[in-house]
């Protein structure tokens, strides 16, 4: 991929151990196939967490905590010596996963850059300076004499930014102003004759610019390699993993979720009202109304119901009761029962089908007459407003939800809806309709027991 600059590394930073790699070159490590996938998934959880935090409008300080915690939780490794390897391997695997389209590259670039930004901020000055050396940034530290001559102005800038005159930074770098546009735009640097005086604590913006531009170029190269060789060469081994990873669902496995008492047929209307997410509620209501659902809808709702605890017998009874008025009991047994038994693994390949995650539902493409999909994604704004109004989301909360939808953050819109309906926060965010259901039930049971 690139020339490894190993000699340089020992020269530039003899004492400091770098735990924040710059991912300049692909690792020459042996990677076990499971690790290949598992490491990538762990890193993806961090990146998705970051994406979620950003779209929720978290402030820099909150983001710093979020990144620190997510990183610790997902990216540690039982063997200390493996931590850096895991970091590097997972990064390079995801490069492969996310190099394949413009949209994927954009997302990955933005999340990795954010991750890097906060990890850099969390490092001490020693490490930060070692990293700058590693980047080969051509900037000189302002000499003492020069510092004295502009000291007053630098202090003035610091005081103009905020009340906490950041412990009087004394290390400054002199940088052509064009290279720190964000600092210039916000008047957070002193500028003299074309040079900006960048304080040590602002250096992150220089380093991040470098990181981003390097990664951006690298992703384009990776894409070229992927399409020209890797995809074909690895078609039996890595390619399927890579292709699945970009759409993978990262939450817990709900296919076996039976934490709650099986729901019985007599409760189902009640429970649908209180704990179904909008997508399922819509299907449920349409089924009641039309006594029919097309295949996509039967799958989405059927698997969901299975996982919230409807037994096969109940499921058969339920679907039969709904369908019969339209198609007749006989035709139901002949044409539809098979599908239901199939979902429960009783027919065909006899495998247990897993319920759909939000990601899968959101990326589905319902056609005319279909009722599956995610209302936040697939409804018109008018219909969505009506549906939200019906479940009691109004005024301010409604506008917040619509706002997220407009920015295409459908799961966040769903999360806000959950919060509005339950009057309780949902920090993890909604990733799966079954998670929506379980979290809802938890809250309701807690409320019942406390009353």
């Amino acid at each position, binding site marked *: 991929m690139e020339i490894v600059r190993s000699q340089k590394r020992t020269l530039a930073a003899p004492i400091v151990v770098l735990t924040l790699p710059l991912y300049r070159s692909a690792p020459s490590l042996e990677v076990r196939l499971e690790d290949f996938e598992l490491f990538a998934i762990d890193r993806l959880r961090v990146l998705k967490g970051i994406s979620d935090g950003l779209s929720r409008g978290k402030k820099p300080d909150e983001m710093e905590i979020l990144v620190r915690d997510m990183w610790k939780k997902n990216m540690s490794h039982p063997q200390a010596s493996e931590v850096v390897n895991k970091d590097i391997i997972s990064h390079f695997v995801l490069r492969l996963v996310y190099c394949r389209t413009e949209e994927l590259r954009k997302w990955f670039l933005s999340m990795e850059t954010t991750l890097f930004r906060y990890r850099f901020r969390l490092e001490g000055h020693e490490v930060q300076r070692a990293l700058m050396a590693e980047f080969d940034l051509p900037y000189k530290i302002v000499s003492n004499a020069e510092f004295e001559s502009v000291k007053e102005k630098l202090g003035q800038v610091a*005081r*103009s930014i905020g009340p906490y005159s950041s412990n009087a930074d004394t290390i400054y770098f002199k940088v052509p102003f064009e290279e720190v546009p964000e600092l*210039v735009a916000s008047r957070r640097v002193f500028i003299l*004759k*074309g*040079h900006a005086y960048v304080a040590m604590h602002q250096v992150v913006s220089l380093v991040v610019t470098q990181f981003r531009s390097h990664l951006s170029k690298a992703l384009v190269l990776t894409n070229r390699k992927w399409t020209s060789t890797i995809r074909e060469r690895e078609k039996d081994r890595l390619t399927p993993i890579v292709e699945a990873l970009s759409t993978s669902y990262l939450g817990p496995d709900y296919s076996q979720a039976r934490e709650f008492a099986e729901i019985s047929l007599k409760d189902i209307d009640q429970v649908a009202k209180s704990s179904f997410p909008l997508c399922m509620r819509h299907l449920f209501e349409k089924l009641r109304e039309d006594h029919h659902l097309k295949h996509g809808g039967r799958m989405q709702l059927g698997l969901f119901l299975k996982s919230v605890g409807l037994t096969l017998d109940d499921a058969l009874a339920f679907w039969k009761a709904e369908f019969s008025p339209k198609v007749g009991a006989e035709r139901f047994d002949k044409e539809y029962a098979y599908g239901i038994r199939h979902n429960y693994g009783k027919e065909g390949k006899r495998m247990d089908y897993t319920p759909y995650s939000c990601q899968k539902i959101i990326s589905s493409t319902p056609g005319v007459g279909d009722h599956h999909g995610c209302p936040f994604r697939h409804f018109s704004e008018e219909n969505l407003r009506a549906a939200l109004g019906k479940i009691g989301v109004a005024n301010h909360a409604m506008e917040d939800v619509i706002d997220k939808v407009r920015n295409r953050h459908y799961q966040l819109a769903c999360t806000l809806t959950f919060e509005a309906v339950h009057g309780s926060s949902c920090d993890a965010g909604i990733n799966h309709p079954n998670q929506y259901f379980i979290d809802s039930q938890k809250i309701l049971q807690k409320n019942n027991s406390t009353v």
Partner: protein
Amino acid sequence: MPRGESENGRDDMLIDGCEPEQPRGNSVPDGFNTNYLKVYYGKLFPHHDIFKWMSYGNDGKHPACDRSYFGQREFSFTLDNDIYLRFQSFNSASELENSINEKCPVKIDIGPVYNVDPAKRHAYAQAGDNGFAPVERELIFDVDITDYDDVRYCCSGADVCLDCWPLMTVAVKVIDTTLRDDFGFNHVLWVYSGRRGVHCWVCDEKARRLNNEQRAAIADYFRGNENSHKKVSLTGHALHPFLARSYTEVLKGFFEEKLLSSQNLFSNEERFEKILEMIPDESITSELRGKWQESRRSSISKEDINVVRWGQLKQMLQSGKQKGQGLRRCVEEIVFSYAYPRLDMEVSKHMNHLLKAPFCIHPKTGRVCIPIDPNHCEEFDPTTVPTLSKLLGELNMGGVKADGGDEWDKTSLGKSVRYFRSSFLQPLLKSCKEKIESSYSAKLQESKNSLSW
């Protein structure tokens, strides 16, 4: 969007107040018409200087000159019948001159330098997203008096007079100093827009090569206080050095010595209430209000009422017993609201914005868009800028003497062309020449090095 469209649109709304110009002796009927303009382009317009400028030294003989440079610059013409010709390009000084003389545009705009000849852009447009794109453009600024309507009481809209023009003078001083001292630019040209404002062209190579993000950063560096005429926001305990310098060197003086009285900022209740609104302390505002409503009845003092009231306000806010920094900042904030430059940010942020060429004639006022010397911008008087009819009158008179030499030298345009050459063009071309030579020898050096491998 081409700048020309919106400007024309706004121009139609108001008629300038500074007319009519007194015709002297050799009377050329007043106003603006295509026949006059033809004479102006034929005899007075400094075509050659514009060509020299826009070539940035690339019209020389040096082997490192880029001969296609001038030809990749976009010019656009607005014709008499409102036809708008974009993407005009020319390969030589004479091509430019011939086309202007022939088409006789009422307005000439200058756009960016593109990667290819803009007249042939269609051939490249298909070649993908980098087929046709701007690669160089002066950093430009546009300040318009119409954006100051809430802080001037003498005129509104496109009208200007000597009472409100100082607002433009402040803008020139603040921006010019900052471009030179902070950003380190040297080749800055200021031009009167012909009616209601000023344009600025920053022509250093470094400025011409800025990308849009960097342009936006500079524009944002200049941004005023977003919440002017709101209560003072207590952000930060000090002004950024650039704002502090602008305040002490320019804003404070102009505000206290000019604007305060010329705009009568405290002369009636409506006006002083607007200022009191910016003070977040009820007890102070009501005390001042009381004083001023009182003094209206018993005003025999000879002193300017605006100056007196400003003095009282300052004393209240700055006297030791007031709670610290916040209220002191109030005084600054008021001055900033009434005097700080207001830029048309969009013009500066994008490479492909068009801007009217210097030495055009403004079609509504008939005035020439002449350069302004930033070192003497206090002396600039928009009401005495030569008009088309005045120049033609002078030309008629000078025609009798006919002793050769440039025609413009015999008119009141002469001073402006001489300033343009000596203070702007010559130093610019000198540095361009040096740049071309030094980059060439660096390249030679490089190729020598690579041979020694």
